[in-house]
């Protein structure tokens, strides 16, 4: 009777996980989905706590204390962390989950040793949990350190690292298989050895992967943790752990693949080809200055949830004939109550009134067009300035570099906005032929490509929000 109730509770929790994840995959419902999963987890934990095991010592004091300590640490960490450091945090959390699986597997291995052996099936399960959990743990910690910038790639990689990894992997698996054969004795020492090996492998596996690829790796390690939880579920014959773990393992894997696709790379390329391309995909250096790129979706989010966005069109808008696309984006944003203005610099384009002609053609209402002064007044209180094929007219050298050929010309002070995104095709200069420090500004991100194509992508991205 009671065990049926426990089963049903677990069943409901499992449903909660699945439905929670399902909801998490759409922006509208994501928050509710997370809540649902949280509730499901709480219910499962609570049920596990109060279900009366026969003759169990229970040790409630230990448990409650541990839970309070762990919960408090997690809670505080989650609220202390800055938005930009979220991926690191997730990575740590994930590693700890893996460590938990390792702990369980070790205890059970030791107990099995003491109780005189286990079946082969049990051994397979225990060793998988140990191995996968271990890789996940050490790998996640290294990923964290990398994202935090605490380790430099150069210090932890060496020539032939990939080959070393293969050898290490083979050794680890070999040891695991051999250990599995010893089901009747379960040598504890070797089990500890396997644990160490798996930790080393996890570390070594992540070491050569480039910083920009870390989110993919974290997602992959996350699905590892899921699998180790599932294995632990098998140890205890516990369905919720099994289902939850498998589910996370599966969705984590597909998520990893999706993330790779979003970066236009294959998973293999991320894991193996990492040496050659390390960091290459996100940075285009210019001397020692660094240019940051932004993805369509990130930009779409920034725009969509902004209060005020100022578009700064330039000659590139005209060349790309992107005025109508620009209007379409404007319409989409305006529908979401984003205030959209156009900052028109007097010499933008190649003839007086060039931007006016184009924007009138696209039916942008006149009151949205701000001239230099009006725009500069508004820019300070703007969340995002989007520079669409403009260059000279947003060049800060005009204000701060007396050596510049345009020093003294009033320009649009887009850097006063909270964020700046520049849409252009390359790092080439504009009409005046001078370099633009705006592109290297801390607030600036670049979106390379033909302005019309980029705006089209942004329209699609905003629509999908």
């Amino acid at each position: 009777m009671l065990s049926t109730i426990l089963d049903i509770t677990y069943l409901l929790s499992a449903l909660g996980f699945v439905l929670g994840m399902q909801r998490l995959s759409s922006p509208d419902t994501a928050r509710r989905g997370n809540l649902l999963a949280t509730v499901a987890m709480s219910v499962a934990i609570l049920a596990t706590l109060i279900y009366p095991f026969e003759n169990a010592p229970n040790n409630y004091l230990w448990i409650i204390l541990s839970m309070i300590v762990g919960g408090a640490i997690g809670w505080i960490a989650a609220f202390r962390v800055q938005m930009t450091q979220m991926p690191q945090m997730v990575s740590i959390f994930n590693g700890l989950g893996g460590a938990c699986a390792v702990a369980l597997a070790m205890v059970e291995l030791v107990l099995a040793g003491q109780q005189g052996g286990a079946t082969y099936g049990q051994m397979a399960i225990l060793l998988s949990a140990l191995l996968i959990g271990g890789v996940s743990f050490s790998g996640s910690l290294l990923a964290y350190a990398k994202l935090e910038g605490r380790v430099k790639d150069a210090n932890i990689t060496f020539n032939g690292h990939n080959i070393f990894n293969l050898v290490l992997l083979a050794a680890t698996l070999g040891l695991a298989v051999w250990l599995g054969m010893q089901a009747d004795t379960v040598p504890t020492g070797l089990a500890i050895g396997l644990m160490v090996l798996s930790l080393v492998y996890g570390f070594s596996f992540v070491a050569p992967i480039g910083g920009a690829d870390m989110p993919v790796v974290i997602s992959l390690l996350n699905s590892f943790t899921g699998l180790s939880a599932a294995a632990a579920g098998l140890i205890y014959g516990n369905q919720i752990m099994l289902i939850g773990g498998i589910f996370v393992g599966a969705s984590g894997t597909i998520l990893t693949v999706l993330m790779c696709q979003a970066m236009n790379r294959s998973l293999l390329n991320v894991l193996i080809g990492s040496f050659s391309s390390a960091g290459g995909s996100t940075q285009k250096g210019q001397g020692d200055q660094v240019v940051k790129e932004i993805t369509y979706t990130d930009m779409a989010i920034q725009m969509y949830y902004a209060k005020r966005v100022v578009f700064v069109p330039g000659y590139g808008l005209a060349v790309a004939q992107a005025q109508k696309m620009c209007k379409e984006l404007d319409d989409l944003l305006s529908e979401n109550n984003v205030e959209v203005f156009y900052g028109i610099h007097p010499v933008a384009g190649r003839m007086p009134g060039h931007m006016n002609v184009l924007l009138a053609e696209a039916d942008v209402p006149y009151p949205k067009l701000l001239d230099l002064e009006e725009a500069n007044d508004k820019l300070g209180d703007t969340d995002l300035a989007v520079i669409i094929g403009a260059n000279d007219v947003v060049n800060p050298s005009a204000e701060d570099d007396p050596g510049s050929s345009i020093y003294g010309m009033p320009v649009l002070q887009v850097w006063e906005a909270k964020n700046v995104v520049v849409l252009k095709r390359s790092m080439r200069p504009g009409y005046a032929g001078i370099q633009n420090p705006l592109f290297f500004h801390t607030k600036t991100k670049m979106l390379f490509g033909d302005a019309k194509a980029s705006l089209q992508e942004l329209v699609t991205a905003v629509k999908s929000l």
Partner: protein
Amino acid sequence: MKIGVLKETNDRRVSLTPASIPKLSTQGFEIFVEQDAGSDAGFADARYEEAGAKVMDRTSLFNQASIISSIHPLSSAELAKLQAGTNLIALFEPFNDPEISESLKKQELIGYSMDMIPRTTLAQSMDVLSSMASIAGYQAVLLGAFQLPRYLPMMITAAGSIRPATVLVLGAGVAGLQAIATAKRLGASVEAFDVRQAAKEEVQSLGAKFIEVEGAKDDSDAGGYAVEQSEDFLKRQRAKVQERAAKADIIITTALVRGRKSPILLPASTVEQMKPGSVVVDLAASGGGNCELTQNGKTIQAHGVTIIGNSNLATEMPEVASTLFSNNLVNYLKLFVQEGQWAPDPENEIIKASRIA
């Protein structure tokens, strides 16, 4: 069926163009064209001859043709020269010249006035008033824009930002709508005004703003023509116009009420308030003008405002105007021909409405 095409005395247009001649010939018409009839519109005599017409002087044309086509009616002196029974096709404007019908009848001439063709959907292909009004509306904007000492579109330039000019169109008939469309194209802020109830939607259908004045008389039974409005209404309208006009850079008025004096939509007091340099183009000048100060056929300056009174702007685009007129005429003439013979059906709605003598 011998049709003669006259040279206009005071107009660069011509009522029939060479391109239309084959269409008439195949119906059985013989075409006589007065010397130099189309030269001002860009159609040399040679092109008429190539197309199959006979070019001749006015007198021989009068003697030979049984149907005479022109844009403006003949002077009474010339009418006297014609043989009885001759068919005349022209814009007689009987509303403005009520005696014309009598004088034609006296001379036993048959008169068809193309401006009396009903404004129905069916008669559109012969509706010269629409064709000409459309040209006039377009030209009015070009003329006004050229005269205006300011830009129409908005311009943010290194030498300062220029706000778009405001164009106010009074009377949103065919000419008014075309003016609205053209001014919008040039980038102006366009507002418009009319007393017909359907006009609001029509104006908005061109993306312009309609200025509403309540209490207009219903005109749905007037066959498409504007009806005269009450004095109180006109007063309130004038007040509203005054308010908007003071802000307008170009005002184009088109409210011509046929057979009556044009309503005054822009009294002198309003003009006084307008910005110097602004322009009024009054297409209703021939009916006395919608602007109190308009002088028909003249461009004057008053209170710093340029007032152009011209109800005949179509003549400034003689080539296309002649082409359209000519096409309308050909479509109209089709009604008169039965199996190659001149046999107008007196019961035909269009013929009935347009026959004035």
